């Protein structure tokens, strides 16, 4: 009876620079490489064409796009029609805060040179497009532990002994 989950979902999140260079792409729906490229191209163009004073939401195809610029990076999420745009803005903001805490005053170069870390942090915050942990402290603690595991001297995190 109650195990009917809401059809609402974040479909994807893109991070790109002001020149339109992709810095991170997380897809929560199955699409071919070709389709992903097409969507990315179109959406990046659309968002970059927005003027600074315009609102953070736009309708694109049958989705709602929520975007916000932090310094030189655009954070862009696609959500479905019934989703809450305002909470999505909060999700973006929370992700930025997490990156900031992890890298210590994060900038675009951090995301470029440590892109895998950016993904790992995102994956500890969102799972399947939904927020899994809303305590900043817990997310960062988990990342810290996972990083430690990676560094374990036994050949880069050999798990046989654990």
């Amino acid at each position, binding site marked *: 009876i*109650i195990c009917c989950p809401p059809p609402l979902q974040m479909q994807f999140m893109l991070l790109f620079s002001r020149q339109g260079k992709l810095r991170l792409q997380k897809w929560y729906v199955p699409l071919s490489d070709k389709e992903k490229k097409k969507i990315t191209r179109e959406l990046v163009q659309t968002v970059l064409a927005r003027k600074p004073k315009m609102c953070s939401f736009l309708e694109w195809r049958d989705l709602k796009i929520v975007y916000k610029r932090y310094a030189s990076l655009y954070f862009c999420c696609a959500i479905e029609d019934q989703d809450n745009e305002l909470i999505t803005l909060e*999700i973006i903001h929370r992700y930025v805060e997490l990156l900031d805490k992890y890298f210590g005053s994060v900038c675009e170069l951090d995301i470029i040179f440590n892109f895998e870390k950016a993904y790992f942090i995102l994956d500890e915050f969102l799972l399947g497009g939904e927020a899994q942990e*809303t305590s900043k402290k817990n997310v960062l603690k*988990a990342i810290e532990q996972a990083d430690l595991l990676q560094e374990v001297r036994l050949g880069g995190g050999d798990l046989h002994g654990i």
Partner: protein
Amino acid sequence: MSPSVRLQEMIRVIRSARTQCEERGVIQRECAAIRAQFRQADNVGRSHNLAKLLYVHMLGYPAHFGQMECVRLIASPRYSEKRVGYLGAMMLLDEKQDASLLITNSIKNDLSHSNQYVQSLALCTLACMGSAEMCRDLAPEIDRLLRTSNSYIKKKAALCAVHIVRKVPELGELFTTAAHSLLSEKNHGVLHGAVLLAPWLVHIMKGLVMSGYSPEHNVAGISDPFLQVRILRLLRILGRNNDTASDAMNDLLAQVATNTDSSKTAGSAVLYETVLTIMDIKSESGLRVLAVNILGRFLLNNDRNIRYISMMSLQKIVQTDHNAVQRHRGTIVDCLKDPDASVKRRALELSLALVSAVNIRSMMKELLLFLSSCPPELRAQAASGIFSAAERYAPSQRWHIDTILHVLTTAGADVRDETVPNLIQLITTANELHSYTVHKLYRALVADISQQSLVQVACWCVGEYGDLLLRAECDDTEPVQVFRPWKVRSCTCILFRYGLTFLRVCVIR
């Protein structure tokens, strides 16, 4: 040198390429090296090679030759390799490819790994890209994990279950029992149905809204807005088409609506979700009015995002809750002046929906004002909307004609073709107004001959009622001096027919 520096070194080299061609060259070389490394049975920097490939892939270059390496790395006993392997799988594989099936077994093994961070990788990957087949295969594992005592894993398993049920709805039943126990973990009692569940959620929600400060989950003074929104969303589903469940949540929704501080986005997000819930369930009318009032307050918010959201929502309910929305008409009309074009568009649509016989005169003033300064992409829509409204609610024929003429002078180029014959039809039937109309049209023509539709109507009108033009039939006009056909020369060929009748009148005098 630590392998990760080699990855960063590669990134640096790629970025320093001065042309696209140079970049391609660098990448081709790197990919060749990476491919060679993949072929080696055992090498130390495996995860870093894959990471390099993933970077290259993000730049838009082909990376399918790395798919099998992902599969291999996922099966590795080393955490660092698994971590990058799973990341690679999520980036390079999708459920439409056969290669994704190859990782199902690894995921299954990792789901029962003794280390929770390994389990976490598997759960994340499944929730991100699990195909229907993989979901069917692994659902029992997820169900088992839902009952673990490890909350770090349990929360991930729960979201994984959500993904599974989205992909394969029939599997929902499998998780029912686990879900129940999951929810009753923090609370007493066993829940057996939507009606029982609703009050329980209401209880949690109350706790979040009214209780003290939890710094960990706090966002701008709001207790865990993400959780609040999620609970509200679930309440929305429960209350839909269910009177009893809806009744149970009425008080809570009113409480959230009244007690949530909307000065920051987090609070507004919760209020917005509350409004969405109220509108979707079988709520009592007082609650609905409360929701509309929240939206009305949003219209006055400094943040344009919130103004935009408000108008989107008001538009959805303007038919069903017309009177409640009417109360905010003034604010909505003010939004016609908002600098943001998307807000303006919404304000226009909403304003047009709020026009009624009672407010037609004042609304039309605002709409015509809007038309004279609105962005070009909205003119056609505004003109068309004004015409419809005028047709439905015109208090008098003279007012109607005046309105249409006003639109033609302001935005004549953006009106539809049938406007001209429609107006002609209207003028024909308004017998007492022929003199008034022809005078007005002539004066408009003298002032501005560039609007084609206006000229068309004017020419026709002067052709029909030119005699009235030359007589002072109306109290407020004087006999008009009809001048040389220099005016007619400016008409285009299309107006030739009209122009001729016009000429006839000029010539007679």
